[in-house]
């Protein structure tokens, strides 16, 4: 297994304008209460990481209960809405429209240059290394339009790509790219699109209602030796461990599953995937803690953490973030997994 550390000069502010985020969070909370809590369809679930049903409630956000698994320490929402309700939320809620129409366009160029260009570069390197003969890729996550654009820009002989997420028709509206097919497809029908060489599940594991079903579908869709590339937010990461319920990154319905490192490994092992890369190349952990301390200076923060992020210079801050990457302790997780041949 390998892990990757990335030296990147990017501030969270550049891809998440805070002033706008306040409005987005307010809308999201209203939407959750109106659309998801009142739907009456919330169902309890076991830990999405290790499947244990031993858990305890740790906090509540927007009326939804976050539980911590007694075994693998993953944190997850239970009871939770079904996939159909979530799809409706992402298609039609005011907050989702606000995100698509206000925030994404405003940050498009920064995200393209600093997030998706390197991600496309990494993805192509992964293919060079493990699946150079790739012919078909399936994209299941949200907001991948810039990634697909970068991939087609960087690689003239790119594999054929099918974008399947439930709002792909909205995200890719008006966009015509050769070799890219937009076909929103429910998880249960994904396998009919295979056999695929590569399955891209960026920023989807944390927000989908049934992770187990998604990974089963990935396995069924992939050809033997095919690759699953995934990214997610993990509760084992520095900022989420320090901030816990104060973290602005934890909110429903985008963060239903905050799997621990151990939970993620259990999940992928159970589905029979071989882990080729497990990295936490996040760049925002320390910055997020700094911001939280600034916002609530009187809160009972751990003294050492407060000292480091408030009193030490930028070099020490950067060194701490690099340490988190090196030892897989950032909350942003990136994985490369392979279906057995």
């Amino acid at each position: 297994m390998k892990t990757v550390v990335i030296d990147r000069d990017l501030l969270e502010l550049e891809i998440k304008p805070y002033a706008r985020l306040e409005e987005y969070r307010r809308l999201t909370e209203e939407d959750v209460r109106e659309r998801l809590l009142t739907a009456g369809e919330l169902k309890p679930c076991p830990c999405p990481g290790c499947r244990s049903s031993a858990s305890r409630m740790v906090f509540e956000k927007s009326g939804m209960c976050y539980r911590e698994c007694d075994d693998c320490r993953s944190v997850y929402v239970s009871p939770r809405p079904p996939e159909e309700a979530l799809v409706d939320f992402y298609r039609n809620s005011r907050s989702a429209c606000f995100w698509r129409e206000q925030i994404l366009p405003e940050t498009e160029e920064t995200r393209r240059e600093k997030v998706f260009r390197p991600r496309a570069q990494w993805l192509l390197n992964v293919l060079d290394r493990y699946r150079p003969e790739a012919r078909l890729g399936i994209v299941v996550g949200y907001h991948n339009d810039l990634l697909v654009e970068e991939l087609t820009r960087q690689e003239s002989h790119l594999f054929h790509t099918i974008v399947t997420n439930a709002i792909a028709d909205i995200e890719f509206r008006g966009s015509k790219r050769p070799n890219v097919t937009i076909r929103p497809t429910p998880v249960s029908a994904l396998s009919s699109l295979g056999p695929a060489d590569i399955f891209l599940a960026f920023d989807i594991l944390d927000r989908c209602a049934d992770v187990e079903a998604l990974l089963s579908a990935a396995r069924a869709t992939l050809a033997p030796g095919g690759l699953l590339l995934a990214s997610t937010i993990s509760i084992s990461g520095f900022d989420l461990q320090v901030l816990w319920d104060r973290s602005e990154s934890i909110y429903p319905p985008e963060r239903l599953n905050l799997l621990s490192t151990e939970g993620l490994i259990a999940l992928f092992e159970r589905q029979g995937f071989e882990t080729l890369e497990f990295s936490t190349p996040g760049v925002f952990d320390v910055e997020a803690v700094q911001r939280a301390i600034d916002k609530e200076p009187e809160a009972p923060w751990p003294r050492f953490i407060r000292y480091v992020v408030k009193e030490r210079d930028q070099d020490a801050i950067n060194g701490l973030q690099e340490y988190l990457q090196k030892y897989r302790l950032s909350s942003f997780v990136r994985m490369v997994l392979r279906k057995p041949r």
Partner: protein
Amino acid sequence: MKTVIIGYGYMGQIRKQVVDTMPELKLCGICDPFLGPGLIPVDCAHYQDYREAIDDVRPDVVFVCTPNRYTPDICIYALEQGCHVFCEKPPGRNLNDIQRIIEVEGKYPHLKLMFGFNHRHHPAIVEAKSFVDAGRLGRILWTRGVYGKSGGRDREFEGSWRNDPDISGGGILLDQGIHMLDLFRFFCGEFHEVYGFLSTAYWNVSVEDNAFVLLRNEQGQVAQFHSSATLWKHTFRLEIGLERGYLIVEGLLSKTGSYGREKLIIGRKPGDDEHAALGNPREEIVYFDTDVSWDLQARELVNCITHNLPVTDSSSLDALRVMEMVDAVYRQAKVRSAAASVPGGERRLP
């Protein structure tokens, strides 16, 4: 396949661990005349003489893990007895040794012969090779390597067979540096020009404890290498400069971990629109956790045997070519007149 390991020192024990994990191989005998009673494995026969081991067990595969002086004779005997052979590096003490082995190999084309250039299979090297082969960073311009160790405790190091020219045939360059030369070939192909300086700078031994090597191939790629037994901090570092970036392999997964965590640094030449990054580009560092090089090599050998495939990785040709490089350095370093002299420096010479 019945398997025998000849030589049960450090390398023999590593090979046994690998053999024990492979269902295709069954360890039936170990030969080492210097084993103390506590070191003899209980799960296979023990022999004092390699001929007796091979004649008695009639193995399919022989692992040769002996000091350099004994390597060629054992390889040759095993081949003549119809065994596939895996031989540790170096393939003998000198060029003549590997040439002898190859001559016999040629008489038995159905047998497989592989050499222990396992560094090619270290994860950071495999990853770096993937970057080079994909071509996204352009062609290789140059390579530079440092590989060295601290020797060890004084008496232990100076008294080691590795520093007895009669047994080893050479010093640190032949013992450890051979891996780096093999990697230069792995990335750049054959080198035709060789320059070298050898020194016995610190240790009281009759072979070199430092070697400085400069090579150039027909594509104009230059490789520079420092092999050393006086690096008090164990070091492995291979740099590859390419048209659109660079790759650095640093550290090496090993049994003791003394070479540091194995990593690959990937740097990309900044674009014209990235003024701030000029001279200090963004880098990615890939860290690796597991050394699978030993397993991969053994599996490759078994694969070649099982499917009757030619050995194309760490073959006798690879061994010959790298021994030619070592031989050239040793020869060149002895011939002072071959190197251009600096006029000012020349005047200071006695």
